[in-house]
């Protein structure tokens, strides 16, 4: 700490030049997952030229859309160092609620609203339990996973919603689109961009990161924890609800088992996307890429003719590979960052 520091103008002007070192590091990580994804798709295309046909691309996007939505919501919650395991159950029950409403001749738009509202309600419930009770999110949401699933099973019984009971416009929304771009994909992308922009560009969004990075520091910094946490869960629940409605449109078929076990897929997507369970880091784009990667693997394997017997094992191994690559890249980036920090430090001293 010598007393020789450049004139103020210089010192102030310097930082923007090497703007967002941290940002850059994060982007590089997302690029790594993106690269794995692109490589995988291209390799498949080389093997099977039908893979990236218009229909093929559309299918890829359609498959990912629903998972992207739920993973986006989940990522927001995970960023706050919490988790919502009940998303699968929420998806199931909202899908049925929307279907039940449509079956009675309801308006499709209203059905989506109902699903989102119901999802939000469950999300809020989770959020309130976690933040007011100050109890571990893992336990609470595992509890609500069971509770919502049970309520769903009791309410639905052995009823099911089938495609024939849905309005044509609604069902066709689930698979149609513009050229290779399905409406579902557009919707998911829209939600994703808005969520990412919010997290990056708004104080309350940044506070979610703060909350996850260190809850205690957040409290001392005056972050309104009791407001932010339920809000994050609300968003997660709402997106699970939206996903439920879209699931109905896409698959046209809902029963009491819909969405069970989905939480694991969602959590995988989020983890693969580099959102750390220790909170405070990662981005929704990462989670979305993770979702895209996971669903693509499931399209790639059948497309290259891998027998379904092998699919599960390859799935798991690819998942491990993805997180390993991501980790190695992260380590690299950290090293580069440290070097650069060291350089700037000695530059200052010099």
């Amino acid at each position, binding site marked *: 700490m010598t007393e020789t520091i450049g004139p103020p103008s210089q010192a102030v002007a310097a930082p923007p030049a090497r703007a967002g070192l941290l940002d850059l590091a994060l982007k590089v990580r997302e690029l790594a997952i993106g690269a794995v994804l692109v490589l995988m798709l291209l390799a498949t295309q080389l093997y*099977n030229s*039908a*893979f990236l*046909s218009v*229909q*093929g691309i559309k*299918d890829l996007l359609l*498959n990912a859309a629903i998972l992207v939505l739920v993973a986006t919501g989940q990522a927001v919650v995970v960023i706050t160092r919490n988790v919502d395991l009940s998303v699968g159950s929420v998806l199931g029950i909202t899908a049925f609620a929307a279907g039940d409403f449509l079956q009675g001749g309801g308006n499709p738009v209203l059905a989506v609203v109902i699903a989102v509202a119901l999802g939000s309600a469950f999300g809020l419930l989770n959020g309130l339990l976690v933040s007011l009770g100050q109890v571990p999110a893992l336990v609470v949401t595992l509890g609500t996973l069971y509770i919502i699933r049970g309520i769903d*099973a009791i309410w*639905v*019984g*052995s*009823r*099911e919603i*089938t*495609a*024939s009971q*849905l309005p044509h416009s609604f*069902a*066709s929304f*689930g*698979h*149609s689109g513009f050229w290779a771009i399905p409406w579902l994909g557009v919707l998911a992308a829209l939600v994703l961009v808005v969520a990412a922009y919010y997290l990056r560009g708004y104080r309350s969004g940044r506070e979610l990161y703060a909350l996850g990075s260190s809850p205690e520091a957040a409290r001392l910094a005056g972050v309104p924890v009791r407001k932010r946490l339920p809000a994050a869960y609300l968003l997660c629940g709402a997106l699970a609800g939206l996903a439920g409605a879209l699931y109905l449109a896409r*698959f*046209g*078929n809902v*029963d*009491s*088992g*819909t969405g*069970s076990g989905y939480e694991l897929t969602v959590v995988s997507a989020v983890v693969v996307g580099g959102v750390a369970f220790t909170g405070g880091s990662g981005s929704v784009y990462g989670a979305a890429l993770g979702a895209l990667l996971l*669903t693509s693997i*499931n*399209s790639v*394997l*059948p*497309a*290259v*003719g891998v*027998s*379904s*017997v092998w699919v599960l094992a390859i799935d798991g191994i690819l998942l491990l590979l993805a997180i390993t690559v991501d980790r190695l890249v992260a380590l690299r980036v950290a090293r580069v960052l440290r070097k650069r920090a060291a350089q700037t430090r000695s530059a200052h001293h010099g």
Partner: protein
Amino acid sequence: GGTTKKSTDAAGNAAAGSTASANPGAATRTGLTVAFLPKQVNNPYFTIADNGGKKALDALGEKYKEVGTSSGTDTAGQVSYVNTLTQQQVNAIAVSAQDPGALCTALKQAMSNGVKVVTYDSDTNPGCRQVFVSQASAEALGRSEVQLIAKQLNYTGDIAILSAAQTATNQNTWIGYMKDELKKPAYKNMKLVTVAYGNDDAQTSFQQTQGLLQQYPDLKGIISPTTVGIKAAAQYLSGSKYKGKVALTGLGTPNDMRAYVKDGTVAGFELWDPAKLGELAGYAATALASGQITGAQGQTFKAGDLGSFTVGADGVVLLGDPTVFDKSNIDQFDF
């Protein structure tokens, strides 16, 4: 040395039917408790079947109850339900087994505690139950599905099978007969390219269908002998460019498939009547518990409106032939 498969093979699995003799003339006892234990509760298919069973038992004046796991692959859960029913001393259990072997110990324990055991829809090893009520002969089903799709394809083109889980015993038996049927000269222009497994999960079946179509651009038809699989495949086809170009058939329920039959995605498919299957299981269980049959070959019992049935080899009772559903008749069915 050690204990190997060879050294134990000699012991073998004791055969089914009990040695106690049956009394075909015995009166039907009333007030019996018969429990239905489907693969999965809340599964529409099993609900219909079990309601059929309830109908039969109500008609006979017996007590009906249904218990079961909410997951179709929770074998341990199903075992503990068998245990519970044994504890509760019900007179008979009608069970659709999630696993042919895993339930054996528990079912044998039940039988040794005086509980009669009927399996329906999915069988266990023959030694672990007294009667199996079979929906249709596996052979007839397998062959007729190939015949169905062959007609739709004019006996030419590549086909694939979309099955449920790889371990699903009944699926595998049917697929075996399908392959056998395809060997006949009439099908010389048809080729079975692959068997895919959708694990009876809508999304997986969906993506497997996509994969099939991408991998085999010349694919002309898909057989999916599982209600979940055919439904998912139909939903994918109806929303893709393959609609109407790739034929689809298999086992499905009319309610599930109505939309796809009407919009031309599916020309025809088949299924037995699950309600009748359950009904027959109910009658069989009562007959067992009343001592009218023991499960030995050749014994006969009455099953209300369904008529009279004879126990075949290995304690199997056959329901009859499946119904084929198409545009012309689908509106007459509601299940």
